[in-house]
Structure formats: structure tokens, C-alpha cells
């Protein structure tokens, strides 16, 4: 077992001890008031929990809010200040199709092809001194996100989405007002310029969460098949 899963075991053990201490508490306290108060509190909590579990109210409300009203102010991305990002204009979208079934949605916000566990590496074509891999970007309507090229990779990889042209964009954000009137998704075209085929790391930030992803560009990431057709190198 690895460090992370050992840490999870310790977290669960700690939580189990806290639960046991919590369960014993009424017996160790003295006086009727001390006994009744926690019981009353836990009864209310249990009732609330039962309602939430039976109706799924909390989760569904959050989803509806996300889809219909856009993210709340508390869901602002935590990293990379706004002025350092490039805003992807909503008007540059090219459609409202959902992502293909094989491509998973990241952080509830966007989908990108080329991830090693989902598809082959993206195919590249020669563009001057560099290679360009055309790609698509599916963004959930009304959701805010950032797509970041880690600084360490920016010399080797730039990306472009919409009509940005030359893609010196290490940090792309979506206009939070970008939503389709009657569809859940908005689509953009774009892609990546690289010096050489690579397994690129990108970072997606949305709703206070951050996920690192890998995209095979012109060559497969470990365990990923290469492009469908031979790429230029």
C-alpha cells in the first residue's frame, strides 16, 4: 500500500476514534441537562440527515444551481489570479454538443480529448518549426473554470482555444456568463503547439478544486496508444 492510502487508513482510524468518543459522551457526563442536550441535538441532526439522505436534497440542489444559475461567488477558482489568465470569449464557441461518451468530464466543468485513460494520443501536424495538435474543448454551460499550463512546461507547450490565434496562453478561463440558452454544453475548437511530441501535464481548476491531467500530444503517455495515424515529428 502506498503513502496516500496509508494516510487514508490513519484518517479513517482517527475518525473512528472520534466517533467512538462521541458515542460515549452522554454516559460520561453528569446531570440531566448535560445528558438531554446532546441527545436532543443528535436527534435533530439525525432527522436532518435522514431528510437529506432520503431526498438527496443537498446534492441535487447544488447541481441545479450549477446548471441553471451558474456558480456562486464562493466557487471562484482559488489559484492563478484573474488578471493573469486569458478570457475565452463565449462568442467564439462553435456548437452546443455534449462530449463523446468516452471522454469524462473533469471537475464537472469541461472535457478534453487525449487523456491516456480514455483515448489515443492526439495527432500532430507540422506548423513551421513546431507541431500543432488540433483538439476540442467541451465546457459545461455557465460553469467557471481555468485551464492552466504549468509554468515548467510553458516553454515547450502553448495552447489556443476559440479564435485566439497564436496561443501564448498558459492560463485560459471561461467567461462565467458563457451559457447556452437551451443546452448544457458549449464547444470550442483549438489545440496545442509543441516543439516535440510529448505527454503534457495540464491543470484544471473549477469550483475550488484542482486536478492535474495528462494529454498525449503526438505520442502516447505511459500506457496510452499513440495517435491513430503517424504524426509528423
Amino acid at each position, binding site marked *: 500500500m502506498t503513502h496516500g492510502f496509508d494516510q487514508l*487508513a490513519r*484518517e479513517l482510524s482517527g*475518525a473512528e476514534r472520534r*466517533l467512538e468518543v462521541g458515542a460515549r459522551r452522554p454516559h460520561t457526563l453528569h446531570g440531566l441537562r448535560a445528558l438531554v442536550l446532546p441527545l436532543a441535538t443528535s436527534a435533530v441532526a439525525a432527522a436532518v440527515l435522514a431528510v437529506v439522505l432520503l431526498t438527496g436534497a443537498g446534492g441535487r440542489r447544488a447541481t441545479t444551481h450549477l446548471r441553471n444559475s451558474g456558480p456562486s461567488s464562493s466557487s471562484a477558482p482559488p489559484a492563478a489570479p484573474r488578471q493573469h489568465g486569458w478570457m475565452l470569449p463565449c462568442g467564439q464557441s462553435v456548437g452546443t454538443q455534449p462530449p463523446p461518451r468516452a471522454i469524462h468530464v*473533469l471537475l464537472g466543468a469541461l472535457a478534453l480529448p487525449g487523456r491516456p485513460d*480514455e483515448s489515443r494520443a492526439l495527432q500532430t501536424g507540422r506548423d513551421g518549426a513546431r507541431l500543432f495538435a488540433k483538439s476540442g474543448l467541451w465546457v459545461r454551460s455557465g460553469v467557471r473554470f481555468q485551464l492552466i499550463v504549468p509554468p515548467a512546461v510553458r516553454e515547450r507547450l502553448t495552447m489556443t482555444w476559440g479564435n485566439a490565434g497564436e496561443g501564448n496562453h498558459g492560463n485560459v478561463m471561461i467567461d462565467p456568463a458563457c451559457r447556452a440558452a437551451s443546452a448544457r454544453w458549449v464547444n470550442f475548437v483549438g489545440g496545442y503547439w509543441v516543439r516535440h511530441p510529448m505527454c503534457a501535464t495540464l491543470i484544471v481548476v473549477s469550483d475550488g478544486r484542482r486536478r492535474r491531467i495528462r494529454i498525449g500530444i503526438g505520442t502516447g503517455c505511459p500506457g496510452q496508444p499513440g495517435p491513430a495515424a503517424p504524426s509528423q515529428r
Partner: protein
Amino acid sequence: METERELREDFERFYRANLKVVLSYCVARTRDPELAADLAAETFAAALTARDGYAPAQGSARRWLLGIAAHKTSDALRRGHVQRRAQRQLGMAEITWSEDDLAYVTSIEPGSLDLVLAELPEDQRRAVQAHVVDELGYGEIAQVTGVSEQTVRKRVSRGLAALRRQLDQEPR
């Protein structure tokens, strides 16, 4: 049975005995090791909070745990991320998974769930894999395999029933 006792008395041992099968299930459905690791953490946290509600008469502890994992996975695939509701309720710290952790998840991908599935007859195994793991519709599977939709439904149903019996037999 051992894991039932561990669920009640030693949750860490229950966790260690069942981690692989939960990870295997989650990664098979999501094909995303990081998401699978997040799901496993939330599944075990939810199991810990709800363990007093587990009734052996309804099936084995492992089947009960996989039921939680299935529910959490469906929810995460719909949202695109895992809600940490149970972990927050328990005051657990969020774990940042390292490359080693994710490599570990990937390494068990073909393992435990396949072992469970492998004991099914070939036609049922393929049908369950396509419908439950790959989330293909009955019609799509029927087209690919060249049998009727009704036959596919029957194979999935029989396969799932066999899996339920198999999981109830534990330990694995």
C-alpha cells in the same frame, strides 16, 4: 464472517481488506485513477458513518460497501467530481494523491473486479462488463454482439445475480 466483524470492531482492517476491490470497481467505471482514489476515500468514510445501519441479512459487508461505491461513482460521474460529504462530516483531511498512489491504483485496475467477473460464464461476463462497467445501453450491446436486446438483458440480469451471490460468499 471476518469482514463483518472488522466492519464493527476494527474499521482499519476492514479498509485494508476491501480497498483493492473498491479501487478496482471505481477505476473500472471512471477510468480515472485520481477520481477512483477520491471515490474510495469517500466510500470508506461513508461506510464508517453508516456502519451501524449495516444489516448482514441484506448481504455481505463487501456487497454493502460496493453498493456505496456504486452510488458514489454514479454521483461523481454525473457531477465530474467527488463530493466529500462523509469525509467532511468526519473531520477528515483531504488527501493529495501522489504519482505513486495513482500508479498503485492503475496497477490494480485489471485485478480484483476482473477476478470477480472472471467467475461468470463468458456471455454474462461480457454483458455485465459492457452494461455496468462501460455503461453501454442494452441496444448498443445487442448491436455489437449480434444478439437480441432481450438476450442481453437476460445475460446482464443473470450475471448480476451471480455476482451478488458470489460477493455474499466472501472473503476474497
